[in-house]
């Protein structure tokens, strides 16, 4: 039985809840009915985020401190989260690392860690969550990927490869879960501005985490499959993808 989706979502699971984009998304989801379950590595940071959401007027905020690289702990953590929440309207996967490309070129184990955090831990979480959402017959799985997954470049291809793998996984998962009424949303942000740019007129390609969060929530509301945030990254990446490999390989990218 497929029930109709709710917006705004009230039972919200956030993995990597202390990332800038996740914080902006959760703030925009605060309503007197919003119940959050937050997961991140640092207790102090997670506590600061949880307090902020409560002061802003969320109904309830629960949290677990864990390193999401430890995939063997996922099942137990997720069953605690879902039993606290009662159900999942929205699960946001926002954890990830950019990693050190230069180090990953010298040392496979650095590359493995990037792939582990960005891809394998997401596979582990999504496997559990997809089964859960399928059985409840609803829910949104929103996953932060990156425009970098659209084409490998020498400056960050290990990161890009982890996101490309994630994109393929999500595409298949969407194909599987659609009939169960589960939305699988692939989110591809471009450059996101930080407090670093406070004094200077920003490069027009930069977006704030708030702006990116609005784009994500609009895509959730409209039941989109893949969203570029801001939107202009879709045509930019279309052009980048269209450059023939024999030219692309000679460029300094």
């Amino acid at each position: 039985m497929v029930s109709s989706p709710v917006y705004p979502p009230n039972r919200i699971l956030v993995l990597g809840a202390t990332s800038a984009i996740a914080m902006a998304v959760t703030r925009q989801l605060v309503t007197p009915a919003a119940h959050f379950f937050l997961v991140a590595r640092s207790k102090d940071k997670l506590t600061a985020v949880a307090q902020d959401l409560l002061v802003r007027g969320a109904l309830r905020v629960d949290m677990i401190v864990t390193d999401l690289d430890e995939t063997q702990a996922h099942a137990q953590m997720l069953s605690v989260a879902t039993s606290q929440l009662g159900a999942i309207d929205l699960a946001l996967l926002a954890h990830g690392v950019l990693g050190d490309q230069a180090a990953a070129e010298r040392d496979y184990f650095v590359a493995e860690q990037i792939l582990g955090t960005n891809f394998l831990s997401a596979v582990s979480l999504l496997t559990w969550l997809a089964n859960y959402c399928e059985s409840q017959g609803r829910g949104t799985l929103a996953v932060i990927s990156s425009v970098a997954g659209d084409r490998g470049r020498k400056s960050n291809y290990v990161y890009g490869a982890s996101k490309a793998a994630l994109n393929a996984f999500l595409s298949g998962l969407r194909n599987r879960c659609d009939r169960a009424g589960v939305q699988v949303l692939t989110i591809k942000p471009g450059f996101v501005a930080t407090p670093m740019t406070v004094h200077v007129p920003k490069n027009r390609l930069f977006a704030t985490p708030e702006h990116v969060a609005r784009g994500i929530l609009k895509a959730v509301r409209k039941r989109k499959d893949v969203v570029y945030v801001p939107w202009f990254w879709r045509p930019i990446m279309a052009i980048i993808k269209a450059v023939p490999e024999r030219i692309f390989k000679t460029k300094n990218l």
Partner: protein
Amino acid sequence: MPAKTTSPAFESWGRYPRHHADVVPLYWTSDFPLPAPPQAPMLPVGMGRSYGDSCLLDGGTLLAARGLDRFISFNPANGLLCCEAGVTLAEILDFGVPRGWFLPVTPGTKFVTVGGAIANDIHGKNHHVAGTFGCHVPRFGLVRSTGQKYECTATQNQSLYEATIGGMGLTGLITWAEVQLRPVVSRKIKQDSIKFTGLNEFFALSRESQHLEYTVAWIDCVATGRNFARGIFMRGDHSEQPEELKPSGKPRLTMPVDLPAFLMNKGTIGAFNTAYYAKQFAKSKTGLIDYEPFFYPLDSVLHWNRAYGKQGLLQFQNVMPWEPGEYQEGFTQLLKAIAASGLGSFLAVIKTFGTVKSPGMMSFPAPGPMIALDFPVRGERSFDLTERLADITAEYGGKMYPAKDARMAPRHFQQFYPQWQEFARYIDPAFSSAFWQRVTALG
């Protein structure tokens, strides 16, 4: 200096001067002290809305604290808000107004951080009844470059509390603060605007309006002769008619490009001022007005500072002590010097500060008439004028506001703030600012 070539350039809201510094964004209160402390000095910066160089460094490291933007606690029974220091006053209004709570003190822009509001001990149109922002901050957290953490109140770490309020960000990084909000039942302000000509009329209006929460006057600082010191006195109180407390919308207008500097000249400003003065036909006008246009008329145009062109603008703000009797000679001299220069702008306001004392050691406001105005940077001509105004201020025992200054001479600063050496004892040894280096230089 190697920093000149490798570090990005920064400008404050006045866009004069420009300095190069590295920048380290802070996202969490635990991000400071930095894991690898820099050799050159550091300075916290929030929204960069100070006009001169008090939020700039030449060759050091700016700690961009805007990322510390979380609320920590709020007591709906008494309006005590605790938040991280990078939260802006705009965010406090968005949060507080729908719940019936307003800022205790607000400057002419809401795009400043709580940390910046404390560091500059900012004031507003209610100084005569409420004092400065620092009067409403009972407690804050301060982290020094050594890693030492202090919780500061009027009785606990009292010296650091007093030195940090108005301490221009030099005493350490403010990480969080408590702000005592005030209740409101409406977004509206009951406003009177009354035309006046001459300072005596302005002072009389100020006296008779002392019981009202907000008073300020726009003054035509270009007009001379018969029209000298004409202006519009604005006073208001929060409306007591309860109404729905809706959140504010977002600003829609922006100044997309730098206007050519020649647009701001004596002719255009004079014409503008005459039109503005004449716009209000009646001697006095009363009405209900939303708090946004009442407090923040310029916030509705993002980047309005671009109207002054690439050269930027200089801001001047001082306060003069009351002189015995009706006639305020020093203040009158100051206005005459501005009018005679022909450099004054449209944006000139005067107000009388009250006697509420700030806990801040270096706090600017003091009882007496104050003026704030800006004018375009026109090389030596504008610098000569600021120097002349500083001289008059010094001659009559007044003082100038560091947050709005780019030109004050060391001798002037040290006369205006004779406690500066006492204050210097509380400066974090790893902190400095372009302003501080300038005004404490020898000579």
